[in-house]
């Protein structure tokens, strides 16, 4: 063994020896490309200029790639697409939480006796259904579907939540090129099953719309504008109250405030029905400004610590912003309905039209995201909530909603925050596979996300320097979110 010094040296050698296979690969395929890529971002390397036939020297281009990016209209469009698709995230999180709540319930009804009843009645239900199907001379398709549902029910009653969990999880697990191709076929505008199924209900809906006076339906826009404004103002007063109570500092209020008022700004700038939207948006902003100034003049009763209630304020603002955007979208759809319904409503052409391509991708995303890893994380989180908390709530006579709102939701806050951050990081980098397999980024760039943009620049157009520059900008965004997580994540989590 020898002296301690030689032991230390021996350990270093051994440690490096064990590390060497991994670190060599790590250096070759991570660190070196990373440094290389960083330098690339500052060069004008373009395969159109620098190839076997035309070998101009590669020049150091300082910040020109980044300056060009700032002036590139396409970049903003694709950034907008990426953010638009990310609006799925809160919906997906809510879906995962809902699924996890359902799956965490006791499937056996609390006692073996009830479980036996369940099994017997499931069997009874199935046999009655089978008799009905035979009696009504049901077609093979109906029999197939009812058989599937019956099998699922019987499996669930016998096996408990595992079966349902598996069925929920499979869309996420299989997600990949194969499933995207499947959805492309499902969305086929002329003969896909989605539009085949939608055709008849839409026909009926079109007739109903034609029968009602257009003014009534157009009023839907007014109602949804009013609701969106009411939500924004309600959220604003909540934020102001939090700030007055010392739960939210000025700096920490900035982001929730911006999120809350963003839909109103959007309304004022680019509402599809301009005069109305502009007036309502501007009025709301004026009222909001007035409220904030009044609050500032009044002064605070308690000095606020910088970011104590940030998590709650952020969540509130996020949910309200999403609700407002959904309301605005629904309102403008309702506004246009009478015109469209005049010659009959037809199902949308999904992936082949600009306006519907993104919603189509988002619906597919939700199908895969509800039963995803997030659901499993929520299940684990739910099982870690101490039972005593619920017992105490029961003694206090808490309602089901109160139990959720005051125990489950706060106890799950760390999980929610983690899922949210991971989804945002994934969302910023996402959309490549769907764009490549389903739409090639189209129509007219409506499904091109940043990652697909980098791919086309770097691998189709050959602008290696520019593509690296965009990639580093993307990295900067991801890094900002990570910093945000470090700054607020642990605090929110440990509340």
């Amino acid at each position: 063994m020898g002296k301690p010094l030689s032991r230390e040296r021996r350990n270093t050698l051994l440690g490096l020896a064990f590390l060497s296979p991994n670190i060599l690969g790590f250096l070759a395929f991570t660190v070196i490309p990373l440094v290389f890529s960083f330098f690339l971002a500052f060069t004008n390397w373009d395969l159109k200029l620098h190839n076997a036939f035309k070998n101009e020297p590669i020049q150091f281009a300082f910040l020109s790639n980044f300056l060009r990016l700032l002036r590139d209209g396409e970049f903003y469009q694709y950034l907008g697409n990426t953010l638009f698709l990310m609006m799925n995230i809160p919906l997906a999180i809510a879906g995962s939480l809902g699924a996890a709540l359902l799956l965490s319930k006791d499937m056996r009804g609390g006692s073996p006796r009830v479980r036996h009843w369940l099994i017997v009645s499931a069997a009874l239900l199935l046999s009655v259904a089978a008799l009905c199907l035979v009696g009504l001379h049901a077609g093979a398709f109906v029999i197939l579907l009812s058989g599937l549902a019956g099998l699922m029910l019987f499996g669930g009653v016998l096996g408990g939540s595992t079966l349902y969990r598996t069925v929920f999880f499979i869309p996420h697990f299989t997600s990949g090129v194969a499933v995207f191709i499947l959805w492309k076929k499902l969305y086929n505008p002329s003969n896909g099953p989605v539009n085949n199924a939608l055709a008849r209900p839409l026909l009926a809906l079109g007739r109903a719309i034609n029968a009602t006076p257009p003014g009534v339906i157009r009023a839907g826009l007014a109602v949804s504008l009013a609701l969106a404004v009411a939500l924004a103002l309600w959220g604003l007063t909540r934020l102001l109250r939090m700030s007055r109570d010392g739960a939210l500092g000025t700096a920490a209020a900035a982001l929730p405030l911006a999120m809350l008022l963003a839909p109103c700004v959007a309304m004022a700038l680019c509402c599809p029905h301009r005069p109305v939207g502009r007036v309502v948006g501007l009025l709301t902003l004026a009222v909001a400004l007035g409220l904030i100034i009044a609050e500032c003049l009044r002064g605070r009763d308690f000095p606020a610590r910088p970011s104590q209630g940030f998590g709650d304020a952020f969540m509130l603002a996020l949910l309200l912003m999403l609700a407002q955007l959904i309301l605005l979208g629904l309102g403008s759809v309702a506004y246009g309905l009478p015109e469209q319904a005049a010659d009959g409503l037809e199902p949308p052409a999904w992936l082949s039209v600009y306006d519907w391509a993104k919603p189509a991708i988002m619906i597919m995303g939700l199908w895969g995201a509800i039963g995803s890893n997030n659901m499993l994380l929520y299940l684990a989180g739910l099982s870690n909530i101490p039972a005593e908390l619920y017992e105490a709530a029961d003694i206090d006579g808490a309602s089901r909603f109160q139990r959720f709102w005051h125990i489950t939701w706060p106890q799950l806050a760390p999980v929610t925050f983690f899922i949210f951050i991971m989804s945002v990081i994934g969302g910023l980098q996402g959309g490549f596979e769907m764009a490549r397999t389903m739409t090639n980024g189209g129509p007219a760039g409506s499904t091109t996300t940043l990652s697909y943009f980098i791919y086309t620049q770097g691998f189709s157009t050959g602008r290696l320097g520019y593509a690296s520059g965009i990639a580093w900008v993307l990295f900067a965004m991801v890094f900002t979110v990570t910093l945000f997580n470090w700054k607020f994540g642990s605090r929110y989590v440990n509340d």
Partner: protein
Amino acid sequence: MSTTEASFEPVAPAARRGTAGTVTGSSASRFLRTGLLHLLLVALGFTFALPFVWMILTSLKPLDEVGLDAWLPMNLDFRWGNYGEVFHVIPFARFYWNSIFIAAWVTFLQVFTSSLAAFSFSRIPWRGRDRVFLLYLATMMLPGLVMMIPNYQIMIKLRLVDSYVGLILPAAFSAFGTFLLRQFMLTIPTSLDEAAEIDGASKWQVYWDVILPLCRPGLITLTIFTFIGNYHSFFWPLVMLKTVDKYTLPIGLLFFDSTRGQTTNLLMAAVTMSVVPMIVLFVLLQRYLVRGIQLGAVKG
């Protein structure tokens, strides 16, 4: 993150079932509520499964019935031959083999090198170790895209474009695997390897005979995740592969879709054949997968 300490406690949602959703009330009301819960879950699960039902049924139709409203083929005349035809139209067996071959190599290399590195990071005290480990961690949050462009240029220079080696090597060394196994090894008490060393075991023997067997759950989790991740891997094969015979399944499917996408029935047969193994794999391995994902929460 601060939560890493508790990371490898077995997470068993079923073990404490009923904390969040304790059922109270009389038997009759419990029966009613649980029954309704089951019906709701069946309805949800049914909706989730519908696209797959359409996929399988369409793969069994003749081509001229694909666009019809009816999901089943006419007269229940199932065309099982569609599945065989896929193998004639495109080299589908070849795609399967490529996918499995590449994923297997990547998985083997990654698990092996990651476990060695994790052993070094968790069991051998050497100077600068923690700083190197931090560097590993830092690269985990880099978007893979940043590295893709230079990596491709490197592959061109090394003449590895369109080769298996060029596909396997960059994927074979992962910071995440190292991190995962290191966390796992840290939960194994050091007294075990100290005892082995007193008995005269070398570091290699400690690694091979003591640590690796104790790490089995972690190794299994990493193996499954790496394999599946690689089976799905899309970007790198897409840019690297040029000859059809070397395509992996995802790239092969994309090729099928873009060249003969009009034959929806055959395309769906191919899609079914690439999705169904995943479903079977999940059902068989779900114990490890679910636990692995719930542990993965800690990776941030």
